[in-house]
């Protein structure tokens, strides 16, 4: 079937010269109705997709109730978007006090500015952008959100939640897991046996256990090893867990890039008198990381999806706060609407990232050809 459709018996020129309807007919014949089996298969696929659309579209659009004060106001059989509208501010800010919400808003704005600076290729100063994301933004975010300085009231971290918390976890995880991952990857290839074995042990350990058990370790096991009376913040523990867990995966990705580099690069760097760190920082890592952009983005997407697991630690990220919202007696039975919104947000972020990675790769390929 595959072979038959791929090998065309019609010369290309004839296709190019044919009129538009004829071209469409030809395309239909080759790609949809190549044989009676193909025609049947196409029909089945179209029917399945149609059935799915027929279930979801009326529910989400035609029969939906757009504004409601409680679940009772909503028509049965349709989505109850009033639930999402009523809980929207909670989904975005968690339990952050309404009067202080300009602070998370500022953080969102800074984050968007930083990401734009970092991700749009035409804007110069990527080194400063990285510095901004890794040093300035975390400090500013913490000071702004937590408060306690310059007359800002303190908002403890158990009040942070929703999309705000998901983004804090994801962005801090992403910004720090790549540099740590690169360090572990270098350590794994180090000539010092102790460093090498420590890095191998750490990486294989993290890759061998589920992320949930790392969170359990951070929350229930770690406090035993800290000075008594010291109560670490669950959010800080979760962030640390995400960074180190994902750094192990990043390390393996970066190692792939390091192994793909020809030895001549190391030798050339040595020949012009570069030491170890300068060789790595200016010659090796930039090339190695460029080679593994798809792997880095895949790890980033899995990190983003993994942030939902913090619910086992009792943090209210986007997914968990939606689950909590469903438990509200006014809105019982609104799971589908809530999950739909969570899914949409995660899908847009993940799909956006993978599209961005493809664009970057395309840019690299063009640059290499030029």
């Amino acid at each position: 079937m595959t072979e038959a459709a791929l090998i065309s018996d019609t010369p290309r020129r004839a296709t190019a010269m044919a009129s538009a309807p004829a071209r469409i007919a030809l395309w239909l014949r080759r790609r949809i109705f190549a044989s009676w089996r193909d025609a049947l298969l196409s029909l089945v696929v179209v029917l399945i997709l149609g059935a799915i659309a027929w279930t979801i579209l009326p529910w989400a659009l035609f029969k939906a109730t757009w504004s409601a004060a409680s679940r009772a106001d909503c028509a049965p059989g349709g989505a109850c978007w009033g639930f999402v509208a009523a809980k929207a501010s909670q989904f975005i800010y968690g339990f952050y006090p309404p009067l202080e919400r300009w602070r998370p808003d500022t953080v969102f704005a800074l984050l968007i500015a930083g990401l734009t600076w970092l991700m749009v290729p035409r804007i110069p100063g990527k080194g400063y952008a990285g510095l901004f994301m890794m040093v300035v933004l975390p400090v500013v975010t913490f000071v702004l959100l937590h408060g306690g300085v310059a007359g800002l009231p303190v908002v403890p971290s158990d009040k942070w939640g929703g999309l705000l918390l998901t983004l804090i976890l994801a962005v801090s995880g992403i910004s720090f897991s790549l540099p740590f991952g690169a360090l572990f990857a270098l350590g794994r290839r180090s000539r010092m046996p102790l460093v090498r074995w420590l890095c191998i042990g750490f990486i294989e350990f993290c890759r061998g256990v589920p992320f949930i058990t790392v969170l359990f370790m951070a929350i229930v096991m770690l406090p035993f090893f800290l000075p008594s009376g010291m109560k670490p913040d669950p959010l800080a523990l979760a962030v640390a867990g995400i960074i180190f867990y994902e750094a192990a995966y990043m390390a393996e990705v970066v190692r792939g890039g390091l192994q793909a580099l020809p030895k001549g690069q190391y030798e050339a760097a040595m020949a012009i008198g570069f030491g170890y760190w300068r060789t790595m920082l200016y010659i090796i890592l930039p090339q190695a990381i460029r080679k593994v952009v798809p792997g880095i983005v895949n790890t980033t997407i899995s990190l983003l999806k993994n942030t939902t697991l913090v619910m086992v630690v009792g943090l209210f990220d986007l997914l968990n706060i939606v689950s909590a919202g469903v438990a509200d007696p006014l809105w019982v039975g609104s799971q589908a609407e809530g999950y739909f919104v969570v899914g949409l947000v995660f899908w847009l972020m993940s799909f956006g990232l993978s599209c961005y990675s493809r664009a970057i790769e395309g840019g690299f390929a063009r640059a290499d050809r030029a």
Partner: protein
Amino acid sequence: MGWVFQALLVVALAWVAHVAIGNLYDNLAARGLKLGFDFLWQEAGFEIAFHLVPYTSSDNYWRVFLVGITNTLLVTAVAIVFSTILGFTIGIAQLSGNWAVSRAARIYVEIVRNLPQLLHILIWYNVALRALPAPRVAIGVGDMVYLSNRGVFLPALTSDRPGLLVIAILIAVIAALALFRSLTSYAERTGRAVNAWLPSLAVLVLLPVLAVALTGTQVSVSLPQLKGFNFIGGWALVPELTALVFAMAIYNAAFIGELVRASIEAVSKGQREAAAALGFGWWWTLRFIVIPQAVRVLLPPLSNQYLNILKGSSLAVAIGYPDLVGVFTGISINQTGRAIEIVGMTMAVYLAISLLIGALINLFNHMTRIVER
């Protein structure tokens, strides 16, 4: 220089370990706890809704540990089977010349893999399964299988000697595989056409039947039957397990589909053309040229994906399926307070399986590497 750094590292690590262990003893003393595995022999005292090995609430924590491991392995194995079937279908469909089929497979992959696995699980548990009818009006498939919001009910094989049955089936599977392997290798060595399927299948079916007949074991099929508000008899898959299997199979199939697609695309076009030039048909090209080369590319990442399924099964805790994390790391820590031992044991189980599979992948890579002459 390097030695100085490593010596400093040793000192630093030793210092951290010293401080941490000191803290540990202080904390344990403050809470009146001590380290050790004696708690494993204490009575657990709680019920577990679903277990493969016999369990009652008067069993000890070691039993809870075993129940957790078997439940984790069960959901992992079932999810692996279904996600592999679905994933191969999706992967091959993506390469189809049929536009509708390849587009649909592409859409599936792009939607499914960009959503968190936890969301998949919650949607199946809280939305999809709840939409199924109650047991009294369950969807029946030929009076044997019933789908309802209390779970899936399947016919079950019951026997007075279940151990013997399991061993007989295991031996039959191994014997059938060995026979199949030796017959195909005989066919390849001699060039003679040998039908390897029929004898292998015969061994697979006849051996257990023979074992049952010779030992006089009682075997019967128990069908699920509606009694009151629920089904009795048969094999009941609790809703948690059903939702978990659906969600994990669908989620991981998207990744397996991508791996299958990439591995088939990795076989260079020249190979197919050479096969065509030799007069190979579609099936022979696939069987002797494409699949052997694609498998070499596919198996290492596929085994990694299987490990991801094992690790992902720990999300079961979110919907209350009693897997290792849910029942041992969750409930048992709350009851005994033995966080260090229990988290350590849980991690050791996952780590041991991962390292074992990792070693097998390395062995496979070593065995199938291309030997250039």
